[in-house]
Structures are given as structure tokens and as C-alpha cells.
């Protein structure tokens, strides 16, 4: 169902026509807050490969005008903004674009640390529909850390022009998380994205993230053993398998988090080092 008929975002034009009765068209539901995040109920992160339109999605939701450049590596720091949807406040964090979460360059570390320690309630993985395979490498890595993910299948208009058809429902089934086709530059798909973001953030939709199976049985076993121990030492820690893999690799940042116990804070639902210190306590515990 690639989308020449993708609906348009509430703000892209006057809200007239047949769809005004439809909930997601109710433009009153989305209140763009710019940088004024104020108090918020949920934290949402925007992650993805470079130059897939993360900043465009970020701007579409917050009403901010983060400079959007048509080149990879434009956003190297975290940008933050906010929006209100269906009576809930969201803080939106635009992460630097990365190809993976495995290596240790500065921008990848920022993205990885925020996903791991910031524990966003929902992560919007922005994906370039014209380069799905390469983009999925990152999505699969994100899914190892968290299953609270919505995939924004962006640049559908371009993939259409390239003669690429994507079976969106099959993709969602394979990944185990909602997938929203979009053309964020034109504001298409924004209402559906908001709907999915809300469902995942509030836990009203069940996600079952695709887990990467490792070919080598010895590795599988080692990960299982270590993940079990992590579970015992840090009860409630999400993404134990992912942390176990990093420890097997000897990743210095993860080792440090184990040594000084910061990892344990995640299990207790206390905010990570820098990410969510301003977070209202009511929503942190789950």
C-alpha cells in the first residue's frame, strides 16, 4: 500500500472536506509546542540513518524549524522540542543520524546512550524507503535495545518515483512494531505517525520486536548466560541481551555502566545520567 493517497497532516492545509469526523484528522489534537516542552508525560526519540528526514519529522511534530539540510550528518547534537497530542505532553528528542549503534564515534554514542540510558517511552525510527535494506540494519539494532518503536517509513514519494513498492503490513509483521508510510516533507502520514506513537507510548498496542538470532550457537549460549546474570544483578533491566553482547565485545562505555552501577538505575526506572532528569516521576515507573 505505497501511498500516493497518503493523507495530509492537519496543519498542511485548512481542515475541510470529508475527513473532519475522523479522529486523526482533528487538527486540534496536535498542539505544536516548539521548544517549550514544559512538563511532559512521555519522551519520544527520533532516530535513523543520516539524511532520511529525521529533522523534517521532528519539525512536523514540534512546529520548530530546525534547519533541514539535504546532506548526511547535519544534526550532530541532540535537538529537543515538544508537542501535545490527545491531552498528553510529549518531549521529542532529535538524535544524530547514524548507520549503526555498534561503533564508538561521538554521534553514534550520543544516539546509543540516549536510547539505552534515556529510556524514551517511544522511539521513532525514521527509515528511507528507497534504501530499506541498509536502513533496516539500524532498525534491527534499535529493536535489540527497546521494543517501544514506531518505524516511520519516510520518503515514500521518492521510492514511488523510483518504482519501488513496499509491503508495509508485511514489514510491520516482520519487525513486530507499527510501521507508518510517510512523505514528511509534504506533511503526509503525520496523523498516522502520531496515532502509532501514542499507542506505543501508552502501551495500548502490543509490540514484539524482532530479535536477531545469532548463527553461532556458542554465541547464543554465551549471550543467554550473561543476560541471565545481568537480570539477577539488575532486576528489571530492559535489553539484557543487548547489554550482554556489548559486554562480550568489551565495550568500555557499557563496562563502565556495569562497574559504577548506573545500569542498575535503569532497572529501577530511575532516570539515566543526563537524559531525563527533569522527568515527572509519575510516568517514569512502569
Amino acid at each position, binding site marked *: 500500500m505505497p501511498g500516493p493517497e497518503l493523507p495530509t497532516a492537519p496543519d498542511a492545509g485548512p481542515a475541510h472536506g470529508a475527513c473532519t469526523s475522523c479522529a486523526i484528522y482533528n487538527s486540534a489534537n496536535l498542539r505544536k509546542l516548539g521548544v517549550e516542552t514544559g512538563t511532559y508525560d512521555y519522551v519520544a526519540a527520533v532516530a535513523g540513518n543520516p539524511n532520511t528526514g529525521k529533522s523534517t519529522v521532528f519539525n512536523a511534530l514540534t512546529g520548530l524549524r530546525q534547519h533541514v539540510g539535504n*546532506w548526511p550528518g547535519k544534526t*550532530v*547534537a541532540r535537538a529537543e522540542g515538544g508537542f501535545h497530542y490527545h491531552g498528553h505532553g510529549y518531549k521529542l528528542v532529535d538524535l544524530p543520524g547514524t548507520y549503526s549503534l*555498534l*561503533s564508538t564515534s561521538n554521534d553514534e554514542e550520543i544516539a546509543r546512550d540516549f536510547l539505552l540510558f534515556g529510556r524514551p517511552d517511544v522511539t521513532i525510527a525514521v527509515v528511507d524507503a528507497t534504501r530499506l535494506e541498509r536502513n*533496516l*540494519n539500524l532498525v*534491527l539494532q534499535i529493536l535489540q535495545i527497546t521494543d517501544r518503536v514506531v518505524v516511520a517509513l519516510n520518503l515514500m514519494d521518492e521510492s514511488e518515483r523510483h518504482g519501488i*513498492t513496499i509491503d508495509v503490513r508485511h514489514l510491520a509483521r516482520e519487525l513486530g512494531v507499527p510501521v507508518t508510510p510517510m512523505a514528511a516533507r509534504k506533511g503526509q502520514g503525520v496523523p498516522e505517525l502520531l496515532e502509532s506513537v501514542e499507542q506505543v507510548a501508552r502501551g495500548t498496542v502490543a509490540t514484539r520486536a524482532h530479535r536477531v538470532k545469532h548463527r553461532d550457537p556458542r554465541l547464543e549460549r554465551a549471550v543467554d548466560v550473561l543476560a541471565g546474570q545481568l537480570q539477577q544483578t539488575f532486576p528489571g533491566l530492559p535489553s539484557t541481551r543487548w547489554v550482554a553482547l556489548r559486554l562480550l565485545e568489551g565495550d568500555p562505555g557499557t563496562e563502565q555502566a556495569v*562497574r559504577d552501577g548506573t545500569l542498575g538505575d535503569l532497572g529501577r526506572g530511575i532516570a539515566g545520567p543526563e537524559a531525563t532528569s527533569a522527568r515527572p516521576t509519575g510516568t517514569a515507573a512502569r
Partner: protein
Amino acid sequence: MSNAHLLDHAARLRDDLPADFQEGIVESIYSDAAAISSSTVSRDSQRARLTADRLLDRALTHRVWGFAVMGVLFFAVFWFTIAGAAGPSGLLYTLLVEGGHAWLRDGFVALGSPGWLTGIVIDGAYLATAWVIAVMLPPMAIFFPLFTLLEDFGYLPRVAFNLDRLFSAAGAHGKQSLSMMMGYGCNAAGVTATRIIDSRRERLIAIITNNFSICNGRWPTLILMGTIFIGALAPPALGSVVAAGSVVAVAVVGVLTTLLVSWGLSKTVLRGQTSTYSLELPPYRPPQLWRTLHTSLIDRTLFVLRRAILMAAPAGVVIWLLSNITVDASSIAAHVVDALDPLGLALGLNGIILLAYIVAIPANEIIIPTILMLTMTLGSNLFGAQDGVMLELGSAHTETVLIQAGGWTLLTAINLMLFSLLHNPCSTTILTIWNETKSLKWTTVATLLPLTLAFAVTFLTATTARLAGWI
């Protein structure tokens, strides 16, 4: 709390694994991604080849034509800027500097404002601000949208691609061409953008050389100098073309300096391996004209203008105070300029320009207004021109102010352009460099190396010009 046993255990488990197990992890991710992708994506092979993009890329990243197109495009951008900005700048000058200044001054005097207050507010803060607007707004309002259109279209990564070979030859990281591009907007942003470079060695090279990307604050200086001194050498019909050519020439000198300094650093204090990386060329996208105009006008032009005005008003006050507080029968500014003049003249500049660069450390944007104001208040004393007439001159006569009251020559203009290109980064950028490196040593190097280079180069050109008898 010690969880060392977990780490020990992980180390033991690691020993049991094959040495290349990490590649196995990456491989499993890639093969899963490939499997999912192949089961969801289908291609219409007839439309799959998007030949226009390919053809365009072949031309724009061609070994020879790529550079030719680059030169033509940047030249066109500057020519549009210079040719288009002259009229509006003159109009703003007449309105704000001539009309507005006299009108406000009369108003203040009529209200019985004491001389020092009128001086600080009107002759200081207002005049500097009005000048910044008249000099900067028109060129920026043309230059930024044009530049943003190129960026939106996807051209900048092609430039980076073209320059990549040169950067790796200079022992620097290819991604440095991207942070250099960012530097053409703002050096502080360019320095932050070097985060995309993993290796510390190559990142330091990129940070230190980012200063040679001409930033927002310096374009107006170059454009103005190019217009009134170099463009004026050509017949009137070709004036703006020659002026644009001179600005492009300075930008090219900047790129060459970047490469040369990178090469020098990578051969001496920052020796090491050159990293390999892959640069993704994004698809060409039709620029969204209205959105681009809107964002580049509101976000970039007005943002930069606001910063310039915030800096200009206090600088105007400082200049007025310096020029009007008298010690030993002449103003503080006159003393400082007298002291700086020998150095300034040796560099082919003058004391006023050097003082202006000290006042303008917080923001390069205000260099030209500062020079003009200092020249008008001091120039008459220093160079014996008539007192008091300069305020009445129009913007077309900025040249006259500088030549008659300031004693400027073509050499002064050329050396000001070179000094503007090479000199130390502004205070915001220096602070950013400190934040990014957390190293006093490298922050000092990044500040003083360009300044030393600026002194050396301008001294060299000035001495050469003198020995050759050109001035």
C-alpha cells in the same frame, strides 16, 4: 557497588568464543535485514533506473567538470548577491544612516538631551546598528536563500565528494569537507559538525582549519571590499562580475589554506593514519522554493542580523566612548590607533582596522561599520581631511570615506580581505572549540595559528607590494 564479577564472567565467556565473533554479530544483523528487505520490497525494473540523477552526478562529480561547475555556481551566487544588493543597500543607507540619524539626532537635541547622551545613543549605538543593517541585510537576504537552495537540491555533498580527494591527499579526513561546508555558514556550527569525524587527530585538524571557511560575519566584508575597491577597477559594466570574481578568489584561497594547513598539521604535530569512510550522495530533490525562502530569510538572515545588531549597538557605544573620552588632548581611540598604526601599516592595513578587529572579537559582523565609524571620527584628525563633512556622504561614497579620510589604497582592501579570511576565530567559535576539545592547548593553537598566519600573509603581500613599487 562492585559488579566486577560480571565483567570477569564476560571476559571468560569471550575467551571461549571464536576470535571473529564480533563480525558474526554484524553479519547476523545484516542477513536479517537483507531477508526482511527482500521479502517486502519489490522493484519495477523499468522505472528503477533513475537516469537523470546518475547523469547529473556524472557531470557534477567529474574530475574536471565537477570543479568547473563548482566555480561557475559559486561565482553566480556571489554575482547575484553583489549585483542585487547594491541598490537596496544604498536605499537603506539613505533612509537609516543619513535620514534616520539626522532626524533622531535633531529630535534628541530638541528634547534637550545632553551631548554625551545624544552621543552614546545616537552617534554610538544607533549609528552602528543602522550601518550594520544597511551593509548586511541586502547581501544576506540574497546570499542565504541562494545558498540554501543549492543545499536543498543536494549539491553540497557533491562538493564534498569533489574535495574529498584533495583532503585525503592533505592527510585529513574526507568528512572534513562537510564540516568545512558548515563553516561557510558559521564557524561555531562548523566546529560542532566535526563530531562526525571519529579520529581525534583528524578531528583536531578539522577544528583548527574550520576558521578558513568564510562565515556569515565575514562575507559582507569581502563583498563590500570586492565591490568598492576591486569591482571599481573594471569598467562599470563589468564591475559586479569582477567583484564577484574577487570574492570567489578569496574563498578559493580559503580552501587552499585549509588544505595547506591540514597538510602541515598532519605532517608535523598531528601525524597519523588517514581514516577511510563512505560518503553517501543523497538523491537530488527539487528545492521547495517558498519554504527555502522562508526558512533562510527568517532563520538565517534575521538570526544573523539579530546577532549583528545585538553586537553592533554595544560596540557603537564602545566606539563612541573610545573616540570621545579624551586623555592628554586626544581621544583614547586616537592613542590606541596611533600605537597600532606602525604594525597596521607594516601589514598593509592601518591602526583603525586593527582596533576594529579588537572591538569586533565578539562578532565579525561589525567589522565594516566599526572601521567606517572610527575612520569618520578619527580619520579627519589623522589624515588631515576636513572635519564634519563625512556624515553627509552616501553609501556610494563609502569608498570616498575610506580613501580620503582613511588613506586607503587597493592594497589596504586586498589585505583586509586576506586578514578577514585568515585572522583568529570570533569569541563564540573559540568558546565552542574549548567545549569540543576541552583542551587549553588546542584551543590556543586554533586561535593563534590563524592569527599568526594572517599577520604573516598580510605582511608578505604588503612588503612585496612595497618592494615592487605598486604603492
